[in-house]
């Protein structure tokens, strides 16, 4: 996703906080955390001390939920970390336009047309092929910190 898109989408989040502070010691594996300003899923937490009688520190390894990149951070366990608000919404897929945008049906009956196809090759080809075969597809859209991306796909059509 490019930077310009952040601008548009942040409007949708207006009023809602993008992140929440949470004590580093309470963040667990499989939770979320912001590392270097990116929303990440925590895949590893370990604690250590600065010398035996120092304070405890948490060492986090996170995977950027949008790009899949691995990021790491060390935070004193009594300090606060930012935890991103991650939302998942399912939409039915209506159309794929030629310029790579998708058209999605919202709960209220309107359409959402501002999302690109995902960059992940595997998922991309599944969506394209499924759509071409005329299947009823539902996509999960994950949004966090003003960014959105299709992250999963379900076939709800008859077998």
């Amino acid at each position, binding site marked *: 996703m490019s930077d310009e898109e952040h601008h548009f989408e942040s409007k949708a989040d207006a009023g809602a*906080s993008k*992140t*929440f502070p*949470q*004590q*580093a*010691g*309470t963040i667990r594996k*499989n*939770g*979320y955390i912001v590392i270097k300003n990116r929303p990440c899923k925590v895949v590893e937490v*370990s*604690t*250590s*001390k*600065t*010398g*035996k*009688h*120092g*304070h*405890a520190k*948490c060492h986090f390894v996170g995977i950027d939920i949008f790009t*899949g990149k691995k990021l790491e951070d060390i935070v*004193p*366990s*009594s*300090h606060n970390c930012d*935890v*991103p*608000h*991650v*939302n*998942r919404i399912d939409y039915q897929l209506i159309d794929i336009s030629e310029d790579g945008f998708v058209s999605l049906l919202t709960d209220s009956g309107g359409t959402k047309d501002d999302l690109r196809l995902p960059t*992940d090759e*595997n*998922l991309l080809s*599944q*969506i394209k*092929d*499924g759509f071409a075969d005329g299947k009823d597809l539902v996509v*999960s859209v994950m949004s966090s910190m003003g960014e959105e991306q299709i*992250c*999963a*796909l*379900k*076939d709800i059509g008859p077998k």
Partner: protein
Amino acid sequence: RLEFVPAEKEALFYQVNQAILGNHGIDVQFAGIKFLESLVSEFSPSTSSAMGLPREFHEQCRRSLELDNLKTFYRWTQEAASRVTNRIIESDSAVPEPGSDWRDVLISSSHAGWLLSLYAALRLKFSCEGYWLDCPIAVSARKLIVQFCSLTGTVFLSDDGKMHEQHLLQLLSGIIEWVDPPDVVSKAIENGKSDSEMLDGCRALLAIANVTTPYAFDSLLKSMRPIGTLTFLSMLMSEVIKVLMTSNTEEETWSWEARDVLLDTWTAILTPINTINVNALLPSEGIKAAANLFGFIVECELRLASATAFNDEGDSDYLHASVSAMDERLSCYALIARASIDVTIPLLVRVFSERVARLNQGRGIIDLTETLEELYSLLLIIGHVIADEGEGEIPLVPNTIQTQFVVNAVEADKHPVILLSSSIIKFAEQCLSPEMRASVFSARLMESIIWFLARWSRTYLMSSDGIGEKIIDSGHHHEHSSKKALLCFFGEHNQGKLVLDIIVRISLITLASYPGEKDLQGLTCYQLLHSLVQQKHICVHLVTLNSWHELATAFSSEKTLLLLDTAHQRSLAQTLVRSASGIRNSEVSSQYVRNLMGPITTYIVEISSKNNFKSISQQPDILLSVSCMLERLRGAASASEPRTQKAIYELGFSVMSPILVLLEVYKHESAVIYLLLKFVVDWVDGQITYLEAQETAAVVNFCMRLLQLYSSHNIGKVNFFFSLKFRLLLFQISLSLSSSLLSEAKTDKYRDLRALLQLLSSLCSKDMIDFSSDSIEAQGTNISQVVYFGLHMITPLISMDLLKYPKLCHDYFSLLSHILEVYPETFAQLNSDAFAHILGTLDFGLHHQDADVVSKCLRALQALASYHYKETGSGNIGLGAHTVSLKDSSGSVQEGLLSRFLRSLLKLLLFEDYSSDLISVAADALLPLILCEQSLYQRLGNELIERQANPTLRSRLANALHALTSANQLSSSLDRINYQRFRKNLNSFLVEVRGFLRTM
């Protein structure tokens, strides 16, 4: 082997003997010894070998070997040894516990003396060639000498141990050369000499300590040296520790091993100290030796602590690991210290106060890290010396502390143990001041303080054994006065309450003022507070303390404790609720629980009824606080006791609907769902037996809705995961649903299902144990219906894959066999899909490797078959259509369930591997099956007989089959006596035929 007639055997052995004696040249000689070695090693262990022969056969061989030949072998080997010494041990090491008939060869032949002098002679000869100590002959000679040290029992004459003593003296005179003088030996090893001889020397000392009394052990050396063995042991160990401390590496060096062996030696000598008086156990010289050694150990441990104070800690479980790994070592140090308690306790008092003084002087001026680490070590050592762990029971005051001090009750506060305890508590109390906390009380130091307080308080704080009165009655004033003084001093009428208050205030500090220090807080919750509320008489005082109410208030209405790890919060809720058992009035105790938990239920009720809950539910802060609250509810629910039961019922009742809302909203948050299920499980488990009919109806209804909602969310999901496996392409998966995620999702499912099974089991128990005043049927609640309905919903979620989780498998089959035994009639009403699914799992369970699971399945089968048999006997349909063979759509015949299981059970019994413990349970299942399906059984029996080609075996089989159903006046009723008869029959049947059926 056994089949050989004795003459052949002798001939064979004669050949071997000739070979060994070297008559056929060196190669044959070698081969002969090898043959003996393999013969001995094949038959000496009492386990069966890879040859797959039955164990009993081996047992026979071993016995005959031992009786007839082993001793002969030994002689031969000994003779051969004079020519080929380097193979001497190869059969000796297999010597089983020798009895008196071994005396002539082992003891009287002075073989030991010969071996010792051989070793000594060779040792001298090769003294300039260092490699020799490690060459096979030296290694095996030493090994044999160590073995000789551990000889004991009837191999010696019963002459007051004189013969044994003589034997040990002889051995020790040789062994002592390997380790004495300690400093010279250790220096030589540090300079490159092999450590093997020194280590074997330590092992020999251990072996001797294991077979002698401390007095005898000590006097052994006196005949050859001016000191006793204990003094020597103390010197040797000091030397080893010195080397260990100076090398200070993580690697396992020789000094590590030597220390461990020598510590074992001390343990062997000192363990009786816990039951008998030290003076009766040890000579005074030995007590002095122990005191010196302990002093040196403390010195070294402190030196080590300060040397490693600045090391970084990588591992998060370090404290836990270090305490439990060090535990064994520290326990042994404690034994040594307790051998001379009147010297070592004052020593510890002195060392501790020196370190504390150093802290006070240096505070704010110099870096105190080294002193902090010294205190950390010291607290661990002191904790071990003055108190035992207890392992779940209330430990007693250690025996030597009870008996060694002579205390005048008036001067109780001068008792060294009281002095030591008081000075540690006084020191710990200083952490209540913020400045002291900032400058002195690091998290790690606090960990050791909390650990110490937990251990110490279990023994000394308000001890409940009412010993004071008992002692005066029994007249043993002197002997127990030390214990009495101690327990009175920290008893409830003296300093006890004051100390308890200090402990609670320190706990609150570690929970609230050490943010993020999870280990410290875990220790506080699980070790310290948890063990306090386990004792009712302490609870009585706890609930009167202001500090305890401060803790309760902080928990229920302040934000700080929400930052604790969620599992710690659960434990804290449990602890706080449990303390209500100390409130005598039941209304007051209910009110206490309501005050404590009220804000938590209010939070859950309020948040779940918010209009926008669905949209805010995923926010991290909401997610976190919902999880915390659920954990707290679960903690409270698991602390349910008769006195607080009502209050906890109300607590759960008030969150029933909110729980269902949460279940819906968080259906994609498996972690929250799990917490929620666990809360319901614990709550129902704690409540169900007490509930009145109306309450039961409400709870059962709630569980029903919970189950429905859960399965409606999850059926699709599970199917989805299944399909994934087989139809990867059709059901497109995204990158994020990688295989690891898939298995994670499966683990989540597993945990959930297990919780649900536990819930159903708890519900079932209502029919068994019920303390309510009216019958539940009064309200029209039929538990079996509910449980069946639950099973109906859950079984589709239980896949064979999930049954591979042992705990789940176990829970599932317990529930299944329980239900089938208690309510077989409802089973018949299940729809055919659920029915088939359950049968499928039974079939799976029947062939499970866990005998427990198999026996549960067999019970279930027995219940089904006997139900059907009894019902049809009285003209009912029983299991009806399920027992009839059907043709399914594809034309193949689906056998009825009873025939199917009769067939597979027979097959299992005759041809497959199973534990013999299962035979009686299998008999109980087989009998009703045979009775239900007589004709099929006849047919199967005939098939078996016809397949048997050998006429002898054939008639044996026919007879056995006949006897199975006719011997012992077996009738066709299903009563207890008949079941017993059939068990016997089946046993003899299997003994008779299984052998040849399996092997032919």
